[in-house]
Each structure stands twice: as C-alpha cells, then as structure tokens.
C-alpha cells in the first residue's frame, strides 16, 4: 500500500503541482471570500432572533401561580421593547432611543429588537431609533440602505420608518429601505407582507406589497417613479396621526447637522465609522503633525490604514513613521514597519525599500503574527528588486516553514527560475 502511495500517488501529485494553477486560483477567490465575511451579518441577522429570547420563552412556570404569571406577562407586554446594536467596531451594546447608529465602510451594523425584529444597516448607512413602544418603534433612516425584518406577532405592531419626508408604516414584514439625503431619493423593496408609504412626497399614501419596489425622488418638486400596485391605502384603524412631513425633514436636517458638527474635529469617530477620507481630512483640520504627536500607537495604525485606504500614501507614511519614532520596540511599531513595506511595494513599486521594511519587521518580530506574510513579501520584493540570490534564500526559508502557504507557488517559481 505504502509503495503505491509513494509511487503512483506521488507521480500524480507532482504532475498536479506542475500545473501551477494554485496561486492564480487562490488569488481569484480571496477578495470574494473576504467580502463575504464582511457582509455575512446581513444574512445572519435577517433570519435570527435575539439569542436571549429562548431563555425568556424557557421560563419555568411550574411553581408560579397562574394569576401572578398572567399579571407579569401583562406588565411585560406593556413595557417598551428594547434593542441592541451589534457592530464590528465594538462589543454588542444596548441601544438608547435617539442614539446615532452608523455602519462603517467595511461591515454592516445590525440592530436587534427584543421582540425579534431586526434592522441591518448597510455599510456607510446611518439611522436612529427615535422612540420605542411595546409593539414597535419609530426609526429614522438618515442615510443609506437598511434591510428590515419585522417579527410577526399576534397583535398588530406599530412600526414607523422615516426617511427624509417619506414615512413607511409597517405591521409585519420584511423589506429594504434606502434614503439618499444628497439627491433626496427614497426606495423600498418589499420581500414579504405589505407597508404603507406616505409623506410629503406622495399625494396620497400608497400600499406597497410583496415583490413590489418603489423609487421616489423628493427633489424640489414632488416627483414619484412608481413600480407598485397603484392602490390607495385605507388608513389603518387606530393609526396615530402621521407626523407632518416638514417636521420630519426638519428633525433629520437638525440631527444630521449635529452629527457633522460634533464629528468634525474627531477623526477617531470618523475612522471608527469607516469614513476614512473624512477621518483623514478631520485629522488634517486638527493638524496632522499634532495628531501624529498625540495619538496612541493603535490610533496611529488606524489613521495610517485610513490614509492608505483613501489613497493618501504620504499621510499614511507620515503616521507610520511617527508611530515607529514614538513607540520604538512596541508590537505596533513592528506592525508599522510591515505596513510601510506594504505601502512601498504596492503604492510606489519601491521594492528595495519594501524589502528593507519587511526585513525590519522580521528582525523586530521574528515570530510575530505577520511573519509568514512578511517572509513571503520580502521574497517577492527582493525578487522584483533584482536581488535573486537573496530572493532564493527567502524562498527556501519560506517553503521550509510554510510549504503550503500562500506564497509557496511564488517561492517554487523563484527557485525554479
């Protein structure tokens, strides 16, 4: 058996390895996978209830009197629902009405309500839960798109979404809503159930049903572009009087202004929210040198990331050099060396300089978490810089340590060259 494995199997394996398809295939799949991870909360949240709800359902009633239980349930049902905010930039946090909820440019933010409803705010979006009731909430979508899943309950819920001058009244449904405050366009896409869309943009409220989508432009003149069933909606029984559209608009404008003025000087908030270019501008407004002198090591790494991602390479380099100067010997400083190598390699094609930075990272963190990547990149940088003997040594070193690593194909190609 082992002879067969060593003979036939090795022969086929060697022929497969000779195809050299791995590196290309691996690179092709990388971005799709990372994008999937960044957005998977959208899919998870739309079908998931809060994890602590089963605990509530699982309460043992065995030794509790029926009347006391009924009273407790009655009181519980009258209490306003609560919500939690689940984002990448921090732990799951309890939400308060009026809080600004933002999704950064990398990962969506999920808002989960205690009765099972959820909203997933897509990247770059902004919303506030304005008020909470026992069977619903009032939500202001300030910017961007949100996937909404309202839990079906025995009693009709009372959910209202506001986006600019448009209101969406909901009972039990799943839909996606988006609002662009710049061109004042509103859109809704119904996946389940039905909603009533009203507000200043529409002459009369309209019912939007499952499978329909509606786009409204609320520019200077109220223009609508509808792809919906054109059925005027009856006013729901017991519905509260809709908030006047102008007051909603005023609220939205006021709150947006508040957000911008409060965040203008705080580059950290903008970077944490994924507004990288704005974060860099805010740091420049404060004074780039001053920020580089006062920020801590992790913040400097983040600021450099923000500058790198908004194509401001010189700013990124400046922040990283400040990091290395102010925090020598720290892990962050070593990571900074790695990032400097990456910038030199990817943004400027300065391969010899990149090699020096990767080499420095390896000197400072010989067993650091970026070691494999650093050896691989060092090998590639030296090869491109024309230092073939050193590149071959790196290739051997890489294959010895990571025979199946992401740079193994490149290493073999360098050795075979």
């Amino acid at each position, binding site marked *: 058996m082992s*002879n*067969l*494995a060593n*003979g*036939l199997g*090795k*022969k*086929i*394996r060697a*022929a*497969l390895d000779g*195809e050299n*398809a*791995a590196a290309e*295939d*691996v690179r*092709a*799949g*990388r971005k*799709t*996978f*990372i994008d*999937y*991870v*960044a957005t*998977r*909360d959208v899919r998870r949240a739309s079908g998931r209830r809060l994890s602590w709800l089963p605990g509530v359902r699982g309460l043992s009633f065995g030794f509790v009197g029926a009347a006391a239980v009924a009273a407790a349930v009655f009181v519980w049902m009258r209490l306003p629902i609560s919500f939690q905010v689940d984002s*990448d*930039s*921090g732990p799951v946090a309890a939400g308060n009405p009026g809080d600004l909820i933002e999704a950064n440019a*990398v*990962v969506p933010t999920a808002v989960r309500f205690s009765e099972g409803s959820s909203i997933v705010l897509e990247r770059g979006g902004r919303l506030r839960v304005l008020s909470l009731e026992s069977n619903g909430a009032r939500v202001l979508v300030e910017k961007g798109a949100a996937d909404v899943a309202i839990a079906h309950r025995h009693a009709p819920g009372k959910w209202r979404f506001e986006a600019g001058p448009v209101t969406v009244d909901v009972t039990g449904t799943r839909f996606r809503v988006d609002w662009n405050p710049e061109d004042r366009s509103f859109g809704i896409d119904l996946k389940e159930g039905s909603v009533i869309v009203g507000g200043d943009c529409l002459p009369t409220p309209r019912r939007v049903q499952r499978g329909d989508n509606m786009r409204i432009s609320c520019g200077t003149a109220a223009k609508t572009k509808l792809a919906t069933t054109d059925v005027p909606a009856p006013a729901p029984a017991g519905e509260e009087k809709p908030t006047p559209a102008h007051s909603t608009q005023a609220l939205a404008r006021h709150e947006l202004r508040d957000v911008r003025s409060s965040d203008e000087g*705080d*580059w*950290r*908030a903008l*970077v*944490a*929210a994924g507004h990288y270019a704005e974060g860099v501008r805010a740091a420049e407004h*404060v004074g780039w040198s001053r920020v580089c002198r*006062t920020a801590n090591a*992790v*913040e400097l*790494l*983040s600021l450099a*990331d923000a500058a790198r*991602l908004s194509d401001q390479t010189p700013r990124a380099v400046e922040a990283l050099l400040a990091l290395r100067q102010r925090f020598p010997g720290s*892990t962050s400083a070593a*990571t900074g060396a*790695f*990032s400097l190598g990456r910038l030199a390699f990817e943004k400027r094609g300065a391969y010899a300089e990149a090699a020096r930075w990767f080499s420095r990272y390896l000197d400072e963190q010989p067993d650091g*978490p*970026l070691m*494999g*990547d650093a050896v691989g990149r060092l090998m590639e940088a030296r090869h491109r810089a024309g230092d073939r003997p050193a590149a071959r040594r790196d290739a051997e070193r890489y294959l010895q340590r990571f025979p*199946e*690593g*992401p740079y*193994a*194909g490149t290493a073999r190609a360098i050795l075979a060259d």
Partner: protein
Amino acid sequence: MLQPKYMVTPLTFARGDDDLIDGLRAGHPGAAAVFYDRYATSVHRTLQSVLGRDADIPDLLQDVFIRAIDRISELQHLDQVRSWLTTIAVFTARAHIRRLARRKWLFLFSPDQTRQRHLEPPSSDARRALRETYRTLDTLPANERIAFVLRYIDGLTLPEAAAAASTSLATLKRRLSRAEKKFIARVREQPLLEQWLQEGTRWTLERQG
C-alpha cells in the same frame, strides 16, 4: 486635547493565532484574510487532488471557505483547522462530482461538455497522462474515488483519510480496496497511461497481474 469617543480598530489583523478564531467569529475582515491566506493553498491542493484540473476549482475554493466561516462556531482549537477544512473540502468536492454526474446524464452530448474536454490541449506527456488518470477516476463511484485520492495522491494516513471522508476506518479500507482494483484494471486498458505509470510504478501493475 482630543477625547476619544470611539474604539478605533486597525484593519490589519495583527494578533496571534490564539485570537484568530475569535477574530473570525467576530467577522474581522483582517482575520478572514489571514485565515484564507494561511489555508487556501492546502484546501486548493485537496480539491485538485480529488477533482484533477477542473475549471470550477476557484469557485469551489470559495465555497469551502464560506462553509467554514458559516460553521466557525464548531471549531474549538486552531490546531484542528487543517483537518477540519480538509473534511469540508472533501464534502464540497464530493457534491461537485455528483453534480457533474447528474449533469452528464442530463446533457450527455451538450456543447458545454464537449468544450470542457478541449479547454486545455495537452502540451506534454505528463499533462496528457494526468488527464487520462482523472478520466479513469471519473469512472469510479464518488466515495471510492475520494478514498483513493486521499490515501494515494494526497498521502494521508488511513485514519486521516477516514476522518477527511467522514467515514469509519473499516469503510474507508473497503472503499480503498475496491477503488484500487478498479483503477488498476482500467489503467491496463489505456496503453499511454500504463506506460506513464509504469515508468515509476512498474510493480504496481505487475502486482495486480
């Protein structure tokens, strides 16, 4: 002096192995990148061993990692990752083989099938022999083919191959024995392949004779 209001997280995942699983569970894109970079070549190797040269491998590679990330809660220790990913890769490859078999029945002479055969014109004896090897493996039942490939081409030990194929050791051995007999019998019918294999494995064919 600026007062930080937000926790700022660098996008580069620069933490150790112990934190990688937590980072993946938290959906950290940097952790996902590290995870993929570290294991994609190994997963690719398994898929390629089972399927040979297949145009769908890049898609299947993504499928494996997406399945893995969706089931990341099952994973307790980083040292289990490689075998765990191999199991998912084998499962994915098996589903692909069965899908192809169904498609073959439905579209026996479709242009799609014909085109796939001619995608890569053979440029060397090794490549031609490789293609014939996988044509031969195509004739085996999926489970026998997987047992054969994991043991002989991927070089896994019997317990490793059984774990990767999600089966018992006894079942794997039975599949392996059947696969080996069928494979060798079919190789004998193909002079080119027989000659290529005999160059280094002459005893294999003699042994069967």
